[in-house]
């Protein structure tokens, strides 16, 4: 096992071998989900704290299930209704929790760099469960696991990531992860939703949906955050949906074996038509299932390799 990190903060700094380790470990964790009694004693006596500063259903639940199936004690600490609302700083909240000696702190924060700040100041392992528009590494890992399962390999595949790339931590983590694994990435969307200097991250940039998805093995649709219209980045939802939404009609231009992914939650009828989200190419629910396995792998690799 090559895993020697204290924290998992992003995909950018991971080595391909480390990504491979997480995916292989996650693959073996999937067997637990198929059991009647979904519990192994691997992390008995370990404490995992989910510290969420931002609303989340699937990610928090997924980490919670992952921890529980591994027999860790899992505590959910939601920043709303807590000391954070009484004006306590992020770092003070984190230090308070750290004083209770958790083994792993899973952090979701609305500000980019929030988990980095906490990790720098605390002795326990920190997992970034999404920070602002920065990174969401476990989402990228579960996406890679899903693609590898369906396609049998990762290297050489072409992925189109479509939509609001500028504000997407999922896009950033996937770009880094996919580049590390030898995949080709095209990002596509209206120029106002493509971040500056994006091409320097080693991706192709396209401003036409059909062009971006024509040769793709995987199409990853991003959620359009509806508040973006206020910033003057797009004129209307209607126009966005017509030009950038994935519909049956646009699918006529893609490969027959294409995978369609979405990190959720889906805006049905905005970035993706309901019949496409539920259609034969869609692997959206496989992504959710793999989320638990990947988070089990990450918790195990961070906490399980050290003595209880």
């Amino acid at each position: 096992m090559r895993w020697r990190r204290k924290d998992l903060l992003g995909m950018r700094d991971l080595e391909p071998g480390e990504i491979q380790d997480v995916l292989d470990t996650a693959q073996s964790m999937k067997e637990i989900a198929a059991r009647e009694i979904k519990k192994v004693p691997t992390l008995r006596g370990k404490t995992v704290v989910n510290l969420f500063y931002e609303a989340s259903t699937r990610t928090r639940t997924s980490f919670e299930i992952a921890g529980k199936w591994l027999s860790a004690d899992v505590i959910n600490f939601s920043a709303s209704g807590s000391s954070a609302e009484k004006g306590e700083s992020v770092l003070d909240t984190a230090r308070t929790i750290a004083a209770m000696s958790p083994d792993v702190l899973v952090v979701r924060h609305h500000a980019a760099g929030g988990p980095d700040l906490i990790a720098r100041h605390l002795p326990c392992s920190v997992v970034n469960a999404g920070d602002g528009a920065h990174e969401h590494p476990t989402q990228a890992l579960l996406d890679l696991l899903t693609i590898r399962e369906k396609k049998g390999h990762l290297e050489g595949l072409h992925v189109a990531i479509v939509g609001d790339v500028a504000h997407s931590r999922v896009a950033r983590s996937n770009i880094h992860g996919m580049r590390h694994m030898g995949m080709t990435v095209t990002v596509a969307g209206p120029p106002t939703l493509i971040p500056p200097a994006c091409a320097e991250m080693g991706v192709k940039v396209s401003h036409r949906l059909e062009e971006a998805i024509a040769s793709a093995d995987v199409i990853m649709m991003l959620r359009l955050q509806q508040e973006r219209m206020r910033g003057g980045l797009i004129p209307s939802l209607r126009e966005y949906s017509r030009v950038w939404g994935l519909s049956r009609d646009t699918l006529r231009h893609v490969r027959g074996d294409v995978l369609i992914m979405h990190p959720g939650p889906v805006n049905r009828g905005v970035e993706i038509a309901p019949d496409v989200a539920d259609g034969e190419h869609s692997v959206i629910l496989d992504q959710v299932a793999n989320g638990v396995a990947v988070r089990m792998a990450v918790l195990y690799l961070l906490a399980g390799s050290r003595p209880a």
Partner: protein
Amino acid sequence: MSLLVRNGRILDPAGGVDAVQDLLIEGGRIARLGRSLAAPEGTAVVDATGKVVCPGFIDMHVHLREPGQEYKETVASGTRAAAAGGFTAVCCMANTFPVNDNRAVTDFILAKARVEGVVRVYPVGAVTKGLKGAELAELAELAEGGCVAFSDDGHCVMNAEIYRRAMEYALPFGAPVISHAEDAHLARGAAMHEGLVSTELGLSGQPAAAEDVMVARDILLAELTSAHLHIAHLSTAGAVRMVRSAKARGVHVTAEVTPHHLLLTDEAVRTYDPNTRMAPPLRGKRDVEAVREALADGTIDCIATDHAPHELAEKESDFAAAANGIVGLETAVPLLLDRLVRPGIIDLPTLIARLSGGPARVLNLSGGSLAVGAPADLTVLDLGQAWTIDPTRFRSRSRNTPFGGATGTGAPVMTIVGGAVVTV
């Protein structure tokens, strides 16, 4: 009282002097320069053998925070930080509480400086009342009170008409209007420079154009009004280009650059250290190359620190929520000597000129040279002194610096103001 500075390397770019000499100070002014000067009866003697003696450094961009935010800095602590860092004079910006937009605040600052300050303090008055960008402050009274320039620093005056009128109204006072050139709309919500690093970090960036747009506007207004425009903390290659061509056309424009914009790029933000957050933000590699070149060729007239003290709680937060700015008075000269002069990027006489004669000319101050009769403001450097930056030892009340722990060689070792050695 008189003072003899003996056997130092006298380096006065303004006077074209670079020789080992003695320097005699009498009555707070430079009395004589020469070899083996005799010390008149009762003269104190300072041995400067092996040291460089230069005109006192002037930092024309400092936030002393008094009145109103004495928990960050005071006139007493800020001027001690200045003296410790080799500066004999500072200009303090108007964004205090209350704002220095009227004579009473100017008088208060100068009274504090007389009683508690240890270096010269030159206030900068606000351009508009309350820094709101809407109505002109009483510039005539501010000038009478001792303000040496006008600026809404920290805010860009977005209304071009108001700024045009400010430039015109300031003409009789011979004091520059200092522009914080940052388009408020292009920079809205931005935490750093826009580019690959902001994209990878997921932080909202402001493009270099946010600065360039305003530098362009202000140069056009200076051309229209014949006013003296000074660009604060210039940070982009585009602004360098425009200032260079405006100067060539004869527009009265000057500019300053900060040590951090000379030494760091936006790569430094990768750690999310809130001490790498400032306005203007740390820029790209090409911008840093451009401001270095402009400093060397004189397009940029001076170095100013934009010393911006903040307490820990304002900096110990996530990057996007952290306050802008870093302290600079006690780190600027050592860093510049070690990282620009030692590698040969800027020669020593040029660095000294940009820290002394440069700002003196921008502000029409009497310092900045070692000519006989000039005020005896001197900075003494030891080019061989090794240092480590330890923020816990700052004289400043604040410790917000990205340079904590940095090491290097070459530092100011003595500051003389009006002929008296400053002890901090």
